[in-house]
């Protein structure tokens, strides 16, 4: 189940950027994640799907330790994620994260949102932080909104700012936790376009989403989760046309029938 070294685009000679080894997590007695094994190579795009409550978000949030886990370990670029503040900060600087609810800082302007992280945590100069910020704002096509406050932007624009904010940290890998679930339908494509461009630029991505069109377009690997465990890992063509597991088949029939 977990051995997918033979799949396309996961040439074993490539760097293992993100690796889950037997990860398990419990809330009290409730097991939220069980025996998660997954390897993501540099440049690989992994899309995680599954019914709500299946542990997708929990899994992705374990990577930068927004959730703690009780069993197994996660390696980022070969380094085990530790729980002490210093090494945690180092890990988090390498791992960008985009949230469902954007989580922009509402009390500062868009450009300040983008500059704060690099200035505080990468010790870059104010000038360089500003150049980085403008560069990424142009990439997400909202450079003209730089001086506005987040609340003055639409949801889709806010999410694009949030993506740009993560990119300003020059992360090795980007995590997306249902980035379009909180958006109005007409805002979704703008955000997905940015993510497609990012994928085409070679960024390593792990995306939790229900947008199957996006998954078909960019994913190298599909992961299906249910009840806290990984049920199926497969390339998208195989995953959508010929799923191995019945649970996957059922899930796909439910979300693709419309």
């Amino acid at each position, binding site marked *: 189940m977990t051995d997918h070294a033979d799949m396309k685009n996961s040439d074993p000679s490539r760097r293992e950027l993100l690796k889950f080894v037997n990860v398990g997590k419990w809330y009290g007695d409730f097991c939220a994640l069980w025996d998660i094994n997954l390897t993501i190579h540099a440049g690989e795009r992994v899309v995680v799907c599954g019914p709500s409550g299946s542990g997708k978000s929990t899994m992705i949030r374990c990577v*930068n330790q*927004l959730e703690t886990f009780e069993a197994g370990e996660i390696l980022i670029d070969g380094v085990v994620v530790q729980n002490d*503040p210093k090494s945690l*900060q*180092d890990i*988090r*600087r390498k*791992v*960008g*994260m985009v*949230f469902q*609810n954007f*989580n*922009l*800082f*509402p*009390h*500062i302007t868009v450009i300040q949102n983008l500059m*704060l*992280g690099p200035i*505080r*945590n*990468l010790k870059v100069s104010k000038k360089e932080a500003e150049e980085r910020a403008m560069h990424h704002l142009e990439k997400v096509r909202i450079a003209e909104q730089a001086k506005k406050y987040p609340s003055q932007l639409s949801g889709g624009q806010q999410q694009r700012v*949030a993506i740009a*904010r*993560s990119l300003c*940290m020059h992360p090795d890998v980007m995590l997306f936790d249902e980035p379009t679930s909180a958006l109005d339908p007409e805002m979704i494509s703008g955000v997905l376009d940015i993510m497609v461009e990012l994928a085409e630029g070679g960024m390593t991505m792990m995306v939790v989403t229900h947008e199957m069109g996006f998954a078909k377009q960019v994913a190298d690997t599909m992961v299906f989760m249910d009840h806290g465990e990984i049920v199926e890992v497969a390339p998208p063509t195989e995953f959508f046309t010929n799923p191995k597991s019945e649970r996957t088949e059922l899930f796909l029939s439910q979300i693709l029938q419309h």
Partner: protein
Amino acid sequence: MADKSAQSATGHRIRPPTPSILFTRKSPLIDLGQLLLLGGLTTWVIYKGADAMQYNWQWYRVEQFIYRVVDGELIWGALMKGLMVTFEITAVSMVLSVVIGLVTALLRMSNSFSGKLIANLYLESIRNTPLLVQLFLFYFIFAPIFGIDRFWTGVLCLSFFEGSFAAEIIRAGIQSVSRGQSEAAKALGFSRVNMYRDVILPQAIPIILPPMTGLIINLIKHSAIVSVIAVADLTTEGLNIISETFMAFEIWFTVAGIYLVVTVSLSLFVSWMETRAMRGR
């Protein structure tokens, strides 16, 4: 065609006129009449009662305790000097309360077991004992042990008392900043200190400020308790004057009036500030 349909969608939506306030609300004169009637009645009852016990009103003697003019020079009376001490106690205690409150709030939210325990012990013991008993504890036990004078005994007692409320206000303010904010900051690699400085506190402070001003008003009122240990605040001065002049009714009315003027003008100032801040947003 497109133009026409756009016009029919929005062109005729004229809002009906809102009736003027003058006609919908009852006349302010009626309000004023009710107020005067009630106030007059209360005053009449008090004066009747005082008459019945043959109280000798001497309002003309009160002014000298507020201010005097000697040789064209203004000299503040005992009550005003007492008020200054009240202000001093309030100001110092306010600063200390905020410091104590912030430390306690951060301890309560920390992961440290002993930190949480100390903060909770402090909060529970302060909240569940009378302020007067706390003052006696400070005055009769801590003050002699640590060699603290009466003024500072009063200030410290009030600070620890009010600090327990400040702790809750600050904690509530910090927790009202959504969880997503600290998660975003963490995900960007912020240290705990920077996260509070750059992200959490700037958002929490506007929420904390209004209830904090309520705390200042409470401090002004609660500071009267230091008269028990003879710190020369407004209440103590009032007591002293009464013991010399026996004008209990006039002086207590005056003292209460002064507290009222100070606290009411403070609340008015705060609500003015708040509406101004809201407009700025």
